């Protein structure tokens, strides 16, 4: 018998329909309610849970009371074990955190949660990458890559994982945007960390195609970037698991969420801020290695703001190396890769076609747009 943890953030997504760009914070939530917002999250959670109903005899569902999971599970025809209670109609982020910790303690095999970026952050804060999780997309902001494409595929993937049919786990970004700044028209995104998520079936190859795994592709990609590294050139390595594979292959200490700088295959500095990066750069020849961060394909301006317009300007457009797996690009298409450096003119300059390195001597022409 496998254990599935279930957390529904019942207020996720309420701000979206009334144009409030998020639902974080009690005041905004109140405002959303006044503007007539209806809860979106429970409905989407039920949709995901219906995909689990068929396999329920092998799965025990652990959740919190009322609208935080119990109600949704029952509506989907499931009979959950309630391991904690909430005050109905007044859930808070602390409830999510408490529930996530309880479920970790109960050793659930997978934690399924419905929410948005704020919910993902809460889960990450509570339990980090300790147990596999999977998000049912229900929030206004879905910049994090921990969510399935839609509620049903979240449920399907959960079943596949618990049945041992999707055994691969990937690290997926938890990102969030400062909602207050966002409402004021500024985007300030931060990469908070990585959660462990089962690989979804959607874009995994079928039996016959015999394609290489994403891991092998990343190893080839990293080896190719390294083989082409020039002596006496600074390499600014942006955040993310894709770029981290380069540092790992070089056997160098690195910061998953930050920016590292290397020269002649040695670390110059780890986790640099913008000021420090600009100072190190001086007039040294340099290259920037970045990947698409988050679910929307940003190469600049989300989670790597340390690489600022003046840094990019100094390094030069031709010295930007973009790396990504083919799976990531396929999941993104037909949308372009995005740049949002904060300098509209630079964004325009960076737009156009770029050779994204996808493997050993293997590239895809992909469009960048602002």
């Amino acid at each position: 018998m496998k254990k599935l943890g279930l957390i529904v953030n019942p207020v996720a997504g309420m701000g979206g329909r009334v144009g409030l760009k998020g639902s974080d914070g009690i005041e905004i939530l109140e405002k959303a309610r006044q503007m007539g917002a209806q809860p979106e999250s429970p409905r989407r959670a039920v949709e995901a849970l219906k995909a689990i109903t068929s396999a329920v005899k092998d799965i025990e569902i652990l959740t919190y009371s009322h609208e935080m999971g119990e109600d949704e599970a029952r509506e989907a025809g499931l009979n959950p074990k309630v391991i904690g209670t909430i005050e109905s109609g007044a859930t808070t982020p602390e409830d999510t955190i408490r529930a996530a910790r309880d479920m970790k303690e109960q050793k659930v095999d997978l934690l399924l949660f419905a929410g948005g970026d704020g919910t993902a952050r809460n889960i990450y804060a509570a339990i980090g990458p300790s147990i596999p999780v999977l998000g049912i997309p229900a929030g206004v902001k879905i910049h994090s890559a921990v969510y399935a494409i839609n509620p049903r595929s979240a449920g399907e993937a959960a079943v596949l994982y618990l049945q041992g049919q999707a055994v691969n786990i990937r690290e997926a970004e938890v990102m969030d945007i400062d909602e207050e700044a966002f409402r004021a028209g500024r985007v300030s995104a931060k990469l908070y960390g990585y959660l462990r998520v089962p690989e979804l079936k959607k874009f995994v190859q079928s039996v016959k195609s015999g394609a290489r795994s994403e891991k092998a592709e990343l190893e080839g990609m990293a080896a190719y970037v390294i083989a082409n590294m020039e002596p006496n050139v600074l390499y600014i390595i942006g955040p993310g698991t894709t770029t981290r594979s380069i540092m790992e292959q070089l056997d160098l200490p690195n910061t998953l969420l930050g920016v590292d700088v290397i020269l002649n295959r040695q670390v110059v500095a780890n986790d640099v801020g913008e000021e420090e990066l600009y100072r190190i750069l001086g007039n040294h020849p340099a290259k920037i290695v970045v990947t698409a961060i988050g679910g929307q394909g940003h190469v600049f301006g989300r989670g790597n703001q340390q690489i600022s317009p003046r840094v990019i300007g100094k390094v030069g457009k031709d010295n930007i190396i973009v790396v990504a797996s083919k799976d990531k690009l396929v999941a993104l298409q037909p949308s372009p890769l995005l740049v949002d450096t904060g300098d509209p003119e630079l964004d325009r300059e960076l737009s156009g076609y770029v050779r994204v390195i996808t493997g050993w001597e293997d590239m895809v022409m992909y469009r960048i747009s602002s």
Partner: protein
Amino acid sequence: MGRDPQTLLRKFHQARWDEPIIFELSVPGERGILVPQAEPEVVQEVGNGVGVLPGFLQRKKAPALPEVNQMRVNRHYYHLSQETLGTDVTIDISQGTCTMKYSPKVQEHIASRHPGITEVHPLQDPCTMQGILEIYYKVEQFLKEVSGLDYFTFQPGGGAHAVFTNASIIRAYHEARGDRKRTEIITTMFSHPCDAATPNTVGFKVITLMPDESGYPDLEAMKAALSERTAGIMITNPEDTGIYNPRIEEYVRAAHAVGAICSYDQANANAVLGIARAREAGFDLCHFNLHKTFSAPHGSMGPATGATGVKEFLAPYLPVPRVEYDGQKYHLNHNYPESIGKVRSFFGNFNVVLKTYMWIMQHGAAGLKEAAICSVLNNNYMQKKIAQIPGVVIRYAEGKRRLEQVRYSWEKLYEDTGCGTDDVNRRLVDFGIEHYWTSHHPWVVPEPFTLEPCESYNKDDIDEYVAVLKEISREAYEDPEFVKGAPYNAASHKPLHPAIDDPELIFVSWRQYQKKKGSK
């Protein structure tokens, strides 16, 4: 009895045998054939027959072959064959991109029985195999006409092998001119993956173009990728989507403008036989899979032929030997110093070239064109019917006609019912239909399936195939769990994906199986 005339659905049940591996059937000393003893005169002349071999080539121990009597061997392979589905058993519209057309049995009969073919050794003096060389020569003349190109080789043993040969020729051409900067090949996401993989093996960097919103390879992206470093473009048209790119000339012209060579992957040329030629589209090289378009069987990764064709200026680089005719006799000419050399031993799989010869001779030029027209007509009829099945989505090129195949999508069915393409695929077998081809990796079209009703199938075949898909769609909407539990009537059930993808669980020989299982 027979198929339900109303629904067109069959009641099918496949045989399921608990058949062991043939090595497990081995009984020491049991024999399938008692080999006759050599006559004394022969023994006197050659001794025991192996004594002439140097010691290091002689086995110390007999090979560990299965020792099984003939009748049991026969039963063994009949059991296995009953657990498979293929073109001779089912309506094989399933294997889109593969062109599973009928291979007339008379072709197989002659290829496998005619002593002029079965009793010939490729090292014989060419003057003793003039008939075989004549067939090579004549098929080359046919394919020159079909493609508009100037020379062909039949050495490559398959389609990807021919694309590898093409990439090697492109490299040799630039090298011969002293142009060593050209290190890049451009291909497209919907071309066969060998158009990326084989140039990579040859040593090129490969740049792939994504489809644009209409499903064509992104021309602007290609223009951005082209430079003095581009050695060539290697693309398909129509691509796996079945969409013909009417602006192909622009792509070729843009590539030529920077000095790149244009190679046309025509593995599946079924839609354009006698209609459109590589030369008119401006290509410098092409290749045909004789085991698709020209009716020879695929042979289960066995004997196949990828015929590579080139324009005159690339002819010096073709593999040797080349078959030539001086007006009286056919020759094998090895004397091409700039040749890329051999890509396969001797001169390729003759039996495939022979079947191609017979197929073309049976059809004539008009027949080839008619085959292309029928294959496109069949596909258009089938697409129209499949488009009406609930749950099916057809991406790209809305309102435009496809050529010989279509990459469909069960995206909507998956969203509505949770049954995806793998679920439908498993259910197909319950109606006596072979598993269909989904898509090459990665799945750009979600929940894909690719069908190709080439000219061999008639309206009744197509109607039955469509009826099966329609029935599975109905089942998925009414009882998705039932579809997910399929197959119910097949030889093998639901193999788990990790088990198939895990190299540790794949054994390609009995010795490897024993080694990995640790039994020896």
